[in-house]
């Protein structure tokens, strides 16, 4: 407790002190033995990979979850929050990654919604006047009369922050605030945060971006696997050191890269190639910026990177669901740039989508209907124009058996299956058509350890059968265990492709943080 001593009055307790916090979900340790102290006047960064337990910890601090063990001490007094309302009353407010604003309401209405200070009867003009006064006093520029719908994401975030600060928050928690901002908006935000802490408040800044954490914070706490591994003064930190802390050294290498004698060799010619492909996201922003990649038959290519750096668009472009605005997509040398999703599937490219329930399945339809979505158009499920429900159920039964999913009734809606069972069903369905390539986007997300292992075995099985597998994942451990090569994405570009056998975790961590690879790996093609 010597750092930042200048800012502290002797005898003043930290604003927030967490002691021995633990939180368990079925089969998952989300947090264990976490100690954290946040002092007035500091911006405290909480760094960690996806799933490291950052959000859970903050949800505990803001009263959304109850800790299974440990104490929350605010200003020296132990507190237990039953709801976010109690947390905000104690001065702790959070701005979530996905804004919780009513889009059809004006800024003023959103600020005053669900606030005890809002009078029971008040005119619209008065609301706006009060909002403008608040905004001026807190030095946050917002347009009180504008509908939230019409605001940019940066402006919406300011409204969220204003809403929290208006409720007299002294600790502002921001969950990956810059993920939705342009660089200019991020700079604005940083300025406002500095101003806020200079008045004796504190900010907890959740992020997994090394550069911005180094830029904005005073101290950094790193979480890994639900535990806190370090708290350091930012001045003592470097990107390399943080990457090492974040990713960890104790990755259990359960090497699945070894091939049996029967396994198909890696093909010389690529099965699927991207040539300088550019693609946009739903909002029209360039999300893939000149990506070139080759996937060979019989190999597993891992795609690493912090979520939201273009992986989603990459997976969509790779199976025809998103058109490339520039560049070329080749399947075994044939041009597929203009082909649709149907043509990709017909060419033997399977796809386990990121959001299986909402894009890979029709949740309200039966297990049968969902199981045959890739093969409904050919015998035996269809004869000519006729669809044969019985043959469809037979195929569904076969897929469910291969996936080891017990289905009590094939006519029941697929959403009644557990997440793990849905995922195994989708995986098996896609494996049946993936003669050439399987694209798996975050296949282990939301699954327990057993289901993840099953999934990994599936990929090895495919690889040995001579199929190219693209594994997009945020779990480096998973990628290291499985992939022959790992490509790292950052801001829509491939930072580098490394051979896993010779890979250095730190180097991958740096690539993930946006540093370009200096030495090219031998099999990488294109630039």
């Amino acid at each position: 407790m010597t750092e930042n001593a200048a800012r502290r009055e002797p005898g003043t307790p930290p604003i927030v002190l967490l002691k021995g916090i633990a939180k368990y979900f079925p089969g998952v340790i989300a947090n264990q033995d976490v100690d954290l102290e946040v002092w007035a006047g500091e911006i405290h960064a909480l760094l960690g990979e996806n799933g490291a337990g950052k959000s859970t910890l903050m949800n505990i601090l803001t009263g959304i979850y109850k800790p299974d063990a440990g104490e929350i001490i605010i200003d020296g007094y132990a507190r237990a929050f039953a709801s976010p309302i109690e947390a905000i009353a104690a001065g702790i407010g959070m701005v979530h990654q996905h804004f919780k604003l009513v889009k059809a309401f004006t800024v003023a209405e959103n600020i005053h919604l669900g606030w005890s200070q809002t009078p029971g009867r008040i005119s619209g003009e008065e609301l706006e006047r009060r909002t403008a006064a608040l905004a001026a006093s807190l030095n946050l520029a917002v347009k009180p009369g504008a509908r939230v719908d019409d605001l940019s994401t940066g402006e919406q975030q300011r409204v969220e922050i204003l809403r929290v600060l208006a409720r007299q928050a002294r600790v502002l928690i921001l969950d990956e605030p810059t993920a939705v901002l342009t660089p200019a908006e991020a700079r604005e935000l940083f300025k406002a945060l500095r101003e806020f802490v200079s008045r004796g408040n504190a900010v907890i800044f959740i992020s997994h971006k090394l550069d911005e954490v180094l830029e904005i914070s005073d101290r950094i706490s790193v979480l890994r696997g639900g535990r806190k591994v370090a708290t350091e003064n930012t001045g003592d930190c470097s990107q390399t050191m943080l990457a090492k802390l974040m990713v960890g050294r104790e990755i259990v290498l359960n090497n699945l890269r070894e091939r049996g004698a029967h396994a198909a060799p890696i093909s010389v010619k690529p099965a699927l190639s991207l040539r300088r492909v550019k693609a946009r996201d739903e909002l029209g922003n360039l999300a893939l910026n000149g990506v070139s990649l080759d996937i060979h038959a019989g190999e597993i290519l891992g795609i690493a990177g912090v979520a939201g750096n273009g992986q989603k668009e990459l997976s969509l472009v790779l199976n025809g669901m998103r058109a490339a605005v520039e560049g070329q997509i080749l399947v075994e040398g044939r041009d597929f740039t203009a082909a649709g999703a149907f043509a990709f599937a017909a060419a033997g490219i399977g796809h386990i989508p990121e959001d299986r329930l909402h894009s890979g399945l029709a949740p309200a339809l039966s297990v049968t209907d969902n199981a045959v979505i890739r093969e409904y158009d050919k015998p035996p499920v269809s004869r000519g124009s006729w669809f044969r429900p019985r043959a469809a159920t037979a195929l569904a039964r076969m897929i469910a058996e291969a996936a080891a999913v017990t289905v009590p009734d094939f006519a029941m809606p697929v959403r009644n299956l557990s997440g793990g069972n849905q995922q195994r069903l989708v995986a098996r369905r896609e494996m049946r058509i993936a003669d050439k390539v399987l694209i798996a986007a975050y296949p282990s997300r939301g699954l327990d350890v057993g289901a993840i292992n099953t999934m990994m075995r599936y990929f090895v099985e495919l690889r040995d059968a001579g199929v190219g597998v693209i594994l997009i994942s945020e779990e480096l451990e998973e990628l290291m265990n499985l992939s022959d090569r790992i490509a790292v994405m950052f801001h829509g570009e491939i930072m580098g492709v490394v051979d896993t056998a010779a890979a250095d975790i730190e180097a991958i961590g740096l690539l993930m943080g946006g540093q370009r690879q200096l030495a090219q790996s031998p099999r990488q093609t294109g630039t």
Partner: protein
Amino acid sequence: MAIRILYLPSPRPAVALLARALAIILALCCAGLVLAATGAAPLRLAAQVISSTFGSSFGLEDVALLVTPLILTGLAVSVALKIGAWNIGAEGQFYAGAFAATGIGLFIPGPTIVLLPLMFIGGAVAGLLWILIPTLARAYANVSELITTLLLNFVGVLLAYYVSTGPWLDPSGHALGTTARVRHNMPDFWGSVHWGFPIAIGLTFVVAGLLNYTRWGYEVRIAGSNPQAAHYAGMPFRRHLITVMLLSGAIAGIAGMLEIAGTVHRLQGGISNNFGYLGIMVAVLARGSALGVLAGAALMAVILNSGIILQTQGLNTSTVLAITGLILFFTAIGDELAHYRIVRVKAAAA
């Protein structure tokens, strides 16, 4: 012990059915209470309704005549829902179909055997054309079909009023505000029930078959249930949206044609009897099942017929509207509540 409420993503069929039955009973009870409060004797009225509806073949024939258009408008709304579109405009398409059938029947000379099929096709095409603009607007500009189909209803109603009181007014002067009688009648099928009745039932089976036993139907079901999944599988969502909405309009148009050729024989304002709007209720009661439309339409027809009987007892028609409204109201509540299950659990650590 503590009591907890669980939410089930899909209700158990027995519970869902029970909720339906309770909803109808509750609605009837409410209506009965109100009737009792106004001085009527609900039980005696109920007995009267039951005996005059089911006690004679005349009563059943009346119900069958009412059920025919209800099946078709219900099917029209239900089919559009399969692709995720709300066709609120079955009323307008019904008028368009009736208008076209009347025009063909009045002004094209020829034997009935030729003209009836011609009227049938004309009715279907008119219904299809009536929904064409909303369909294209939805498919290419994402304009809510809910609004556009609804607004075209008023155009359809006014068109029927205009021609039946203006250019097509019965020249013989026998009737006010209607066109001349269309001389091509749908032949009778059973008693006074014309062949439209079996045609409506047959069409329902055809549509159910198309949806469940063709590749097209499979694609429509996937695309309607989750457009993103259709995109994922490479199915042409827009093309299916257009064909299904046009089919929906055509079916409602056929309802209008059958009403002219089978039951009313003259185009006049108010000929739809609100069948288009009641079709929405039928479709909601059918819960997305094409065959459920038959049951929903039968229920609605019995209620409508009860209203006619109640009128002979000096009650206002709005009673019937109130009952249908109450049924829909309680059904919506019941359907939602069927998702919940109350369980007792051992009190866990708080």
